[in-house]
C-alpha cells in the first residue's frame, strides 16, 4: 500500500521545567500522519496526548514548557525549530486545532462571527462582505440553525453543541490540510457527540484532509479512526490500524485497555481494569515506563527502554516482548 506522509513526528520530547521538577509530559513521541487518514492518539488522561497535540504547533506555555528534542516535519520544514513567523503561517492555515472545551476555548467577549472572521483574515485578505459570507457558509456547513444571527451571537448565548461546531467551523475557515481535534466530544453530551463525530467524518470525505483525533475513548476510535497511536507515559507504545489495535493489540498496555472495553456479548461480574495507575511524569520509571503495571514484565524492561519497532506491516510496538520479532521476519 502506498501512503504519503504529510506530518512526521520523531522522538518529540516536551518537558516542563517547574518548581517541583521536570515534568516529562511528552517524552519521545514518534508517529507519522498520512494524507487523508484519521489518526487517533489514544491514552489515559495525563499520558501526554494533549501536550503532544499542542507541541505540534508549539502552543504549550513556554516557559515553563520546552521542546528538548525531536522533529515535527511538515511540508519539508521542522515546526519545532522553524522561526515563529513561519509556524504562525502554519497555525490555522495548514494545521488547525479544535479544542476539548469550546466554552473556554472561545473568547467570551467577541461574537462568534468576529472570531471566525478573524481566523479567515489571519491568513489572506478578503473584503468585509466576503469574509462574512465565508463565515456564514462555514457555519451552515456545520449545519448551525439560523447561521445568520449565530454570527452575531456571543459564546455564552450558544448551546454547548453549537459552540463546539462553531469552533470546528472556525478551525476549518482556512481549509487546513490537517485538523487536530483534541477530545472534541468530552465536554458535550451524547447526542451532540454523535453530531460532531458525523461532521468530522463528513469532513474527511468531503475535503480530503487528515485528522489527528485525540481521545481516551476507544469506542470513538473504533468509530472514526483509520489508525491509532497508543500513548503511555509520554511515548507512543503502539501504533497500528484501528482494527489491528482493537482485535490484535500487541502491547500489554493496549491489551489492558482493550480488555477494559465493556463487551456487551460477554457478561462480566466486574469490569476489568489495569492494576496500578498512570506514571508520574516527574519521575518516570526506569526502562519501560509501563513495567510497574505490566503482567509480562521482564528484567530487561526495568533497565532499558524498548524501541518502537515494526512487528507486522505498519504495526509498530515499543515492548521488549517483541525485541526479536523484527529479527524473525528478516
Amino acid at each position: 500500500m502506498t501512503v504519503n506522509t504529510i506530518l512526521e513526528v520523531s522522538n518529540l520530547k516536551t518537558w516542563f521545567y517547574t518548581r517541583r521538577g521536570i515534568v516529562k509530559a511528552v517524552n519521545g513521541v514518534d508517529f507519522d500522519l498520512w494524507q487523508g487518514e484519521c489518526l487517533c492518539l489514544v491514552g489515559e488522561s495525563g499520558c501526554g496526548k494533549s501536550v503532544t497535540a499542542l507541541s505540534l504547533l508549539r502552543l504549550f506555555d513556554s516557559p515553563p514548557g520546552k521542546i528538548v528534542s525531536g522533529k515535527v516535519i511538515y511540508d519539508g520544514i521542522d515546526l519545532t525549530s522553524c522561526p515563529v513567523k513561519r509556524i504562525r503561517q502554519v497555525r490555522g492555515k495548514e494545521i488547525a486545532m479544535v479544542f476539548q472545551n469550546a466554552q473556554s476555548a472561545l473568547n467570551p467577549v467577541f461574537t462568534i462571527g468576529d472570531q471566525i472572521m478573524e481566523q479567515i483574515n489571519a491568513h489572506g485578505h478578503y473584503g468585509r462582505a466576503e469574509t462574512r459570507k465565508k463565515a456564514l457558509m462555514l457555519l451552515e456547513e456545520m449545519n448551525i440553525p439560523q447561521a445568520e444571527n449565530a454570527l452575531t451571537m456571543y459564546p455564552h448565548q450558544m448551546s454547548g453543541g453549537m459552540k463546539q461546531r462553531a469552533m470546528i467551523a472556525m478551525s476549518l475557515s482556512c481549509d487546513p490540510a490537517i485538523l487536530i481535534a483534541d477530545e472534541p466530544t468530552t465536554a458535550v453530551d451524547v447526542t451532540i457527540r454523535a453530531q460532531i463525530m458525523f461532521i468530522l467524518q463528513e469532513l474527511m470525505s468531503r475535503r480530503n484532509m487528515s485528522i489527528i483525533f485525540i481521545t481516551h475513548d476507544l469506542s470513538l476510535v473504533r468509530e472514526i479512526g483509520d489508525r491509532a497511536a497508543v500513548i503511555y507515559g509520554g511515548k507512543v507504545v503502539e501504533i497500528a490500524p484501528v482494527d489491528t489495535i482493537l482485535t490484535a493489540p500487541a502491547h500489554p498496555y493496549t491489551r489492558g485497555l482493550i480488555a477494559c472495553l465493556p463487551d456487551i456479548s460477554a457478561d462480566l461480574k466486574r469490569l476489568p481494569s489495569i492494576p496500578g495507575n498512570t506514571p508520574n511524569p516527574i519521575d518516570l520509571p526506569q526502562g519501560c515506563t509501563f513495567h510497574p503495571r505490566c503482567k509480562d514484565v521482564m528484567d530487561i524492561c526495568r533497565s532499558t527502554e524498548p524501541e518502537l519497532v515494526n512487528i507486522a506491516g505498519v504495526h509498530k510496538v515499543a515492548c521488549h516482548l517483541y525485541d526479536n520479532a523484527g529479527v524473525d521476519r528478516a
Partner: protein
Amino acid sequence: MRSYIIKRLFYSVIIAWGILTITFVLLRVGPTSPVDRYILNIAARGQDVDSVRQAIEARYGLDKPIIEQYLLYMGNLLQGKWGWSFSASQPVMDLIGSHWIYSFQLVLLSSIFAIIVGVGLGMLSAVKQNTKIDYAASIFSFIGISIPGFWLGLMLILVFAVYLGVFRTYYDTNYPIWSLENLRQLILPVLTLGIGSLAGYVRYTRSAMLDNLRKEFVTTARAKGLSERTVIGKHVLRNAVLPLVTIIMFDLGSIVFGGAYLTEIVFGIPGLGQVSFNAIFANDYAVVVAVTLIGTFLVLFINLVTDLIYTYLDPRIRYD
C-alpha cells in the same frame, strides 16, 4: 436597561440627600460656629466682640433654630438656589464655577498619565512575567503605592523648583488652561497625583493580564496563527480590561477630594479641593454641602458609567 438607569438615578438621589443631611447637621450642630472667625478677627483688632456676636449671627440667619435653617436650605436647593458663601462672599455656584476647572484638569491629566503608563507597564510586566522587567515594575508599583503624595510633592518642589529651579514653585493661574506653559507647570502636580494611581494600575493590570494569559482562548487565538501582538493586545487585554475598569473608575472618584486636594495645597492650585477645605475651616456650610453634593454625584455618576461600560465590554452582563 432604561428602567435600570432610572432605578439607579432614584437611588442616587436618596443617597445624595442622605449625605447632604449628614453634612449639614455635622456642620451646624457641631461645637464650632461660622461666627468664631469674625470674633477672632475683631478681637485681634482690639475691639469689643460681645456686642456684635448676635448681630453677625442674625446677619447670616444663624440665630434661627437648626431645623428651620435646614428646611430653608433644602427649600432653596430645590429651587436650584445653592446659596451664598459668606467666607468667599460670592454665590456658591460662582465660587465653584471659577475653581472646578483647576481640579478637573489636574485629575484628568493625572488619570490619563496613570492609565496609559500604568496599564502599559502592567501589561509589559505580565507578558514578561518573572523577568527583571517584571520585578522592577512590581517594586516600582510598591513604591508608588506607598509614597505619601503630599510629601512626594514637597520633595519634588524642593528638588526641581527650589534647588534645580527647573519648575516654578507654585501654580500660576495667569496662563490660559490650554497654553503649553500651563501644561508645563502641571507636570509636577500630575506626577505627584498620578504616581499612586499609576502604581495601583500596574499591579491590577499585571494580575488581570496573568489571569487571562493562561486561559484556553489564548491558546485558541495562537492556534489561529495570530500574531502575538493581536493575541495579547486584543484577546487577553480585552478580557483583562473588565476588572480594570472598576478599579480605575473607583480610583477616579476617590482621588478628586483626596489626593487631588493635598496636591492642590502643596502646589497652590486653586481647585475645588482648596475651596471646599477652606470652606470647612470657615464653617461655610453652603459651600461645604454644595461641594460634598457635587463630589457625591460625581461618584454616583462614575459608578453608573462604570456599569454601563461594563455592559458594553462584557456581553455576559445584563442589567434589568
